[in-house]
């Protein structure tokens, strides 16, 4: 016996009419276009969120790094911005040199790698002494000279990214009787090390030479004026443009840093 497939006459007998197919295709097109649009929007939203999160993370890290160095600094030297209203990068800080090489030929600070600028793994401490005339603390090398490092923050570029670079130079020495306050142009130091502390994607067509386009770091005193030698705190403001479609929308972080070491009298 030959088995024949059994067809349902009612369903199998008649195909879809042209209007049915057209309506189905239209609905399918609408659904697909909505899905596509949603997918693209989702991707953009995800990318934007990621960019904002990355920018905020980088801003926070740069602020934290700046704050830690500002607190330790005995002297500061800011650049004045083009409009003359605020201070900006590059920023040079004088920080007492609290570490010394161990063993002697090795540097006191890491010179390369991700830890560049941090105290070397086996570095020894430099313990302070008292300057008799003022009763203040000083940090000196074995020859009795005051010894300090220069920490410089400046804008940098890496590929299509704007970066913030922390560079240290050491050692700088001065007689115990002098004020050791470093400012550009710095004399060449025996050692140098630098690393990126923040990286920000350039979403616009503007040149990396225009730092304000991607990232803007400004410093003011509490009254939003230029910082003077008598100020005891610095307001750090960092603006980034993480949104590729809306670079005018800024991610802004502020931090007020008390200049601890610089304000002791």
């Amino acid at each position, binding site marked *: 016996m030959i088995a024949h497939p059994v067809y349902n006459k009612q369903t199998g007998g008649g195909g879809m009419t042209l209007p049915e197919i057209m309506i189905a295709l239209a609905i399918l097109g609408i659904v697909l276009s909505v899905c596509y649009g949603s997918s693209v929007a989702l991707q953009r939203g995800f990318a934007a969120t990621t960019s904002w999160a990355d920018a905020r993370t980088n801003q926070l890290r740069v602020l934290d790094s700046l704050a830690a160095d500002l607190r330790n600094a005995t002297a500061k030297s800011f650049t004045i911005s083009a409009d003359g209203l605020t201070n900006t990068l590059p920023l040079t800080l004088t920080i007492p040199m609290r570490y010394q090489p161990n063993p002697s030929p090795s540097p006191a600070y890491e010179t390369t790698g991700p830890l560049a600028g941090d105290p070397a793994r086996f570095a020894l401490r430099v313990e*302070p002494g008292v300057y008799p005339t003022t*009763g*203040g603390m000083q940090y000196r090398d074995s020859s009795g000279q005051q010894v300090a490092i220069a920490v410089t923050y400046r804008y940098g570029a890496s590929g299509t990214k704007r970066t913030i670079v922390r560079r240290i130079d050491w050692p700088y020495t001065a007689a115990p009787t002098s004020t050791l306050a470093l400012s550009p142009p710095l004399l060449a130091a025996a050692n140098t090390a630098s690393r990126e502390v923040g990286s920000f994607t350039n979403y616009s067509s503007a040149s990396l030479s225009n730092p304000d386009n991607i990232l803007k770091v400004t410093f003011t005193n509490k009254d939003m004026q230029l910082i003077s030698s008598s100020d005891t705190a610095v307001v750090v403001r960092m603006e980034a443009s993480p949104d590729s479609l809306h670079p005018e929308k800024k991610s802004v972080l502020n931090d007020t840093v008390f200049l601890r070491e610089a304000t002791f009298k």
Partner: protein
Amino acid sequence: MKIPSASQSRAASALVAVIITVTILALLASSLVVNVNNRRMTLSQASAWQEALAAAEAGVHQGIAQLEQGLAQNSLPLAGPSPIAWSSPFPSGTTTSTSTRVYLSHAGEGPSGASNSYADYTLTLNENTTQTIPRPYYCIVSVGTVGLPGGKSLSMDSADAVLRKLNLQTATRTATRTIEAWVRPVYTTQSPLKTDQAINLNNHNIFVDSFNSADPNRSVNGAPDARDSNGHLLTNIGQFDAPNFNVPLAANIATNSPFAAIGNASVYGDVLTNGGATDGSGTTVTNISNVKGQIINDYYEPIDPIYAPQWSNATLSNSINNSKTFTGGTSTNPARYQVGTVASIGDIRLSGGKQVKFDFGTTGGSPDPSKDYVELYVTGNFTTRGGGNTDGSVVIVNGVNVKIYVAGDLNFSGNGLINYNNKASSLEIYGISPPDGTTQSFTLAGNSDFYGTVYAPGADLKLAGGGSSGEFVGSFTGKSAFLNGTTQIRYDEALAGSGRISSFKIAAWFEDVKKTGTFTGQLQF
């Protein structure tokens, strides 16, 4: 024979499609969750890292507070150079390498409870001798620790790990930060004039300058000038008389208030106020044309109170209004006298040639130069009204060192006090801080030169020179200050470091970012 079913085939295809779709969606969702969670963890870790700094600073502040407590209890720690462990009441010399732990309240993410945020700190004493005076410097190393919230998670950017150096390896994940702070002593004699409230220099003839009794090039036999027996000026040496010493101006007058009326007096140093204004309608620092230094408006230094001596070996007496001699003991065992008690207050009131004299103690009936320290506690007022024809009513024999504590008012007028040492460091007068709401006044007036230091943080201080020689050589601290006449304050720079330690001041602050070990807390030169 099994016949394939078209409907079964379509159902299987749909199942596969659904599984694939769900898988893709799940992957997308998990990617999103991982991404978001990673960033959230980075922010949480950054927050904990910031909190660790607050904890470390809390440890430093706790160390300073315990030093201040030691000052109040007159039992500063003497041990060193090992770190000093503390307990209450204040010990003075227990050394151990154990640090003290301070717990802080913690809210928000991470393990709750006090144990999640704390600081471990050590105190180490270093004595530094300058100007022949050993000065206690303390090193406070404080490590703040805060537990990290959530699971073990590193930031996607290694720069975060480099900066924050979080501890993710142990069962208890933490953020730690280390602060090393140095504090130095502030003495009661570190400036010519210091007050909590307003300073009023009420005459343009007033001047405040400095000299150095320990420097033969900046003093005349230890004095700011030399005079003949009639009081006529023979040699000038102070900055007012001969200002070109090529030394920094050191006669700084300071107030913790915004108010300083300088009265065009000559000040050979800075005028320091707390928020004082020199221009505009709200001027609080006035008539400053003869201030040789700067006007500084961000000054504040607490002026610590003086508490009544708690002597068990003092010689007690009732009120005194007749001549009396107080004889000295040795420097390690000074002779102590107390007039009155807290329950029965005693005054010293002298007039009509009556004289209180501070003299050497005796050995075998003869004056003994080694017995040259006298301490006197007056529970009430100490006043003179002059009247002596040759000597003042209070006389300090040359070579004798005197400390006077006064709980009430003090008034030395006329030829009220003569200090034959002609050296300010030989006389220390302390005003015991009165109860809140009680006024206290310290008045020094007359023609004679005053050599000594006054530290009366609760007293309204009045220095009133008379004639042409109202010279006050030393250092003066009060609640407020009023100077008039031809008053001259001549600050002896050699005083800095003598007297009492009134407080401790941070001299250095450093965050140690090296993760292995800590600073030793020892001075090196």
